[in-house]
């Protein structure tokens, strides 16, 4: 059984975190995955895993969080992407297979994937 108590690798991790801290750039990106009963039943857990994998693969720092049901159950899994100074975009039916394209277009190229958009919330 792996033990948190055998802290050698956690110590290494701690040092790496401190090192990374200087080069880490906060992209001010927040990704929100709908994880209510409806989202979970529609595959949101896989979507979340795919998002985490994609972020790690491309070395993107973004805050990933979950939220309960917002009432658009038929379009689950729902994924919102919010970046500083830009409108918050809600995407619908984001199953695992759509995640790589979503990350590529929205986060890398900075282009909204219009065909999947279910809502936009303008920020002041």
């Amino acid at each position, binding site marked *: 059984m792996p033990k*948190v108590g055998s802290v050698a690798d956690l110590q290494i991790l*701690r040092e790496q975190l401190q090192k990374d801290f200087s080069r880490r750039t906060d992209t001010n990106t927040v990704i929100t*995955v709908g994880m209510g*009963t409806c989202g979970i039943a529609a595959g949101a*857990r896989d979507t979340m*895993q795919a998002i985490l994998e994609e972020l790690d693969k491309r070395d993107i720092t973004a805050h990933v969080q979950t939220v309960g*049901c917002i009432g658009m159950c038929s379009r689950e899994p729902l994924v919102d992407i919010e970046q500083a100074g830009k409108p918050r975009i809600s995407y619908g039916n984001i199953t695992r297979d759509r995640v790589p394209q979503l990350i590529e277009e929205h986060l890398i190229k900075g282009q909204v994937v219009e065909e999947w958009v279910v809502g936009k919330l303008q920020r002041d």
Partner: protein
Amino acid sequence: MRELSLHILDILENALEAGATLVNLDIEENSAANLLSFEISDNGRGMDAKTLEQVQDPFFTTRKTRRVGLGIPLLRAAAERCGGELEIQSQVSLGTRVHVTFELNNIDRAPLGDMFGTLMGFVVSSSNCDLVYHHQVDDRCFEFNTREIRGAIGERSLAEPCVRSWLRAFIAEGLSELYGKSQE
């Protein structure tokens, strides 16, 4: 839902929405007793008697109480069709406890499924809530406490890429040893 781990994630998310800062998740798979059970308890805001009654009834859930919605009735139905039961207790401002049992070998019992996905999804996204996990499979057990992990790395967030990859390896190894798939 096709996996018990999806139900577990659903209840964990309820705890987050109830503002919990600490969640205990205990899972036991006991072949001798032919029992699979899990218990999730949180220190969230809890529910009064009326709300507690409503969350257990799929037809009387209103929008205002939809923070639980169908989740509890679906889980209760899953348990009851496998010779088990669901018990839920809650106290305002103290928290909620959900205890569910299943016959381990019941043909209708959904598999526990992807606990790895459930744990990763919850741990990474819940920056204000700690998880104490205890999972027993007969005489083997896997346990961790995210508060200890945060303490050891000196960082509140478990969402940094290098922490995530450490967590991924740690949880995958813990779960696989639990089911006797260790390389050693």
